[in-house]
């Protein structure tokens, strides 16, 4: 072992393609499962949430308008860069989740593979979920899935990387932009993922990662009129109900949380893609 003193990383938010501190100036201590200090994470405020929504909305047009092939390549690029950072992710997951290095590495591998899996979905969704509609008249009818818009994601509290990737990647693969509130106690892989995103062709604002407390920021996102959908994965039951109720005010699409955090290694199928896709049906006459 070298006796070199390490250069520590300052963990900040990932917002609009940049890494700002919380506008509130707040941070909170992050510990490993044995209580050792790991880092000070930025403690995002509701105003950071607001700024993140603005950034996500601004990025939506370009991201949703990109070709599915292009989106797929960008997302695949994310997996490539994640692979290069696997050691760092493993260290953070091991410390944050109290796993052995081998188990942490397995979780990181699963997360990268999950990302690749979703990267491959971008240009299949229209074929799998869309249709041509044989209407009873002289019209050509077809239906296409389109992204819902800006999705607020409350990331799982326990699975800090695989869980996070499992909820974030489908939102992006479907063409949405995201405002993510990370696991409160295990936020570090989220910010490292932000660094991956920043260096892998994902346009700024497509993903905005906030570290902090879902219970604090969640209600603002649930009520925000410019958020189209919310994934409650990381919200505990009483909070989830409150947020779903708030989301009703603007007819948000709500993906409810499972009663207990699921096994994120299981095949998710389309269960996390469908909720953030709209179907657009188009009619055009057939004539000469």
């Amino acid at each position, binding site marked *: 072992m070298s006796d070199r003193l390490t250069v520590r990383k300052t963990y900040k938010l990932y917002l609009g393609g940049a890494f700002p501190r919380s506008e509130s100036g707040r941070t909170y201590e992050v510990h490993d499962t044995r209580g050792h200090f790991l880092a000070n994470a930025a403690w995002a405020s509701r105003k950071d949430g607001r700024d993140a929504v603005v950034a996500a909305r601004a990025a939506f047009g370009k991201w949703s*308008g990109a070709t599915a092939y292009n989106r797929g390549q960008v997302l695949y690029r994310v997996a490539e860069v994640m692979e290069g950072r696997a050691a760092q992710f493993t260290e953070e997951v091991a410390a944050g989740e109290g796993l052995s290095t081998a188990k942490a590495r397995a979780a990181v591998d699963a997360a990268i593979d999950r990302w690749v899996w979703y990267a491959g979905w971008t240009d299949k969704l229209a074929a799998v979920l869309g249709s041509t*509609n044989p*209407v009873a008249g002289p019209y050509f009818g077809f239906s296409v899935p389109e992204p819902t*818009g800006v999705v607020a994601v409350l990331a799982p509290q326990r699975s800090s990387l695989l869980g996070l990737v499992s909820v974030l990647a489908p939102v992006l693969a479907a063409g949405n932009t995201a405002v993510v509130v990370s696991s409160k106690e295990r936020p570090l892989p989220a910010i490292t993922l932000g660094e991956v995103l920043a260096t892998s062709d994902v346009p700024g604002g497509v993903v905005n990662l906030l570290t902090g407390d879902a219970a604090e920021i969640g209600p603002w996102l649930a009520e925000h009129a410019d958020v189209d959908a919310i994934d409650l994965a990381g919200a505990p039951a009483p909070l989830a109900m409150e947020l779903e109720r708030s989301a009703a*005010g603007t007819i948000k699409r709500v993906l409810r949380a499972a009663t207990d955090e699921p096994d994120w290694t299981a095949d998710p199928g389309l269960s996390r893609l469908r909720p953030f896709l*709209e179907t657009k*049906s188009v009619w055009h006459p057939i004539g000469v």
Partner: protein
Amino acid sequence: MTSLFEYAPAPESRSIVDIRPSYGLFVDGEFVDGTGTPLKTVNPATEEVLSEVATGSEEDVDRAVRAARRAFVKTWGPMRPADRGKYLFRIARLLQERAREFAVLETLDNGKPIRESRDVDVPLAAAHFFYHAGWADKLEHAGLGPAPCPLGVAGQVIPWNFPLLMLAWKVAPALATGNTVVLKPAETTPLTALLFAEICQQADLPPGVVNIVTGAGETGRAVISHPDVDKVAFTGSTEVGRSIARAVAGTEKRLTLELGGKAANIVFDDAPIDQAVEGIVRGIFFNQGHVCCAGSRLLVQESVHDEVVASLQRRIGTLRVGDPMDKNTDLGAINSAEQLARIRELTAFGETEGATCWQPDGDLPDRGFWFKPTVFTDVSPAHRIARDEVFGPVLSVMTFRTPDEAVAKANNTTYGLSAGIWSEKGSRILKVTDQLRAGVVWANTFNEFDPTSPFGGYKQSGYGREGGRQGLAAYLRSDS
């Protein structure tokens, strides 16, 4: 328009349908008394009371849900899917056989022209049952995994604008996917749903598979908040949709909402003008504008604004407003005094806010609820008539100069149900279609519906789809 060729009255015969003096609830295969205070349903064209209809109380709803649960567990759930399909085919055929009765009853209770109930509402309702009947034994091919399961009991609340058709949109997919139903028709238009109950009896549909509980808002609330309802489907106003989403929050109930709209109908300068004018008329005056996807915001390219508005006004001058039972009527009665008051209130805003109101000449009947086809020009996007859903025969005309401006204005609404585009240029249609945030886009047509075409909104127009393969997802549980 002309005094030379006046069409003599051509009334559809009312005698084809027997309206009973009073109706009970349809629970567990039988008509039973309701325990709430009955309500009267009136013909909005004459204000004549048509019948007295039971009001379902919380206990009545509970009885209906229990019947639905029993049917789900004992008969409908375990039934061979092909047999479920056969029941739906039967229902489709029975609707076709008794189409004229349904059309007359719908027009009497709702106020819509007999031409529309005859040519649109009833045939489409039958088509929805026919379409979904075929799905019943093919659900493993619906793209929802190898063995999608029904949810259980569906509580469904429907509006008054297309009473039978909305029933079909709700009941057909629910039954095809193996669910059972408690349906609450709209308070002002319960009669075709009750006639549909007779169809269920004629089809020998097992008791409890379809239960119809009439009543007003309280009854609807009881349906959606009943703890043993697994699935809630609602079509109606965005305001009520919000309260339902709130009520369902924190439960296991699945929810789909089909809510309001303020659709843009965009006319480019290269549009087929005569057909565009027809489409504008169809877009806003179909069903008196009581259509959630009505093309209530006309966006016309500035260079053709005057021409389009002049053509539109000439065309509106030929619309025949009056007795809904007359086969030549184009525009019938407003469904209720309450709705008429709301239309009047919003149009009054239009004038005070500075828009120019135009209505054709002609008299309206003395009795009943009526509103003339109305066009507002000089409308600004900030005006309430450009933003609020009027749900009546009122069109707001605005202009644009470029495709980008058209799209920006079209999307500048909290709704996202439908939109129209008129242009002869294919690539422009596809580009604009892609940019519009709306669940249904009609290009060079408007207000077309089909059971194979998924229907539903973006944004605050709701979520979930009705119709097509996509519509089945609302009633099935699947692993994928």
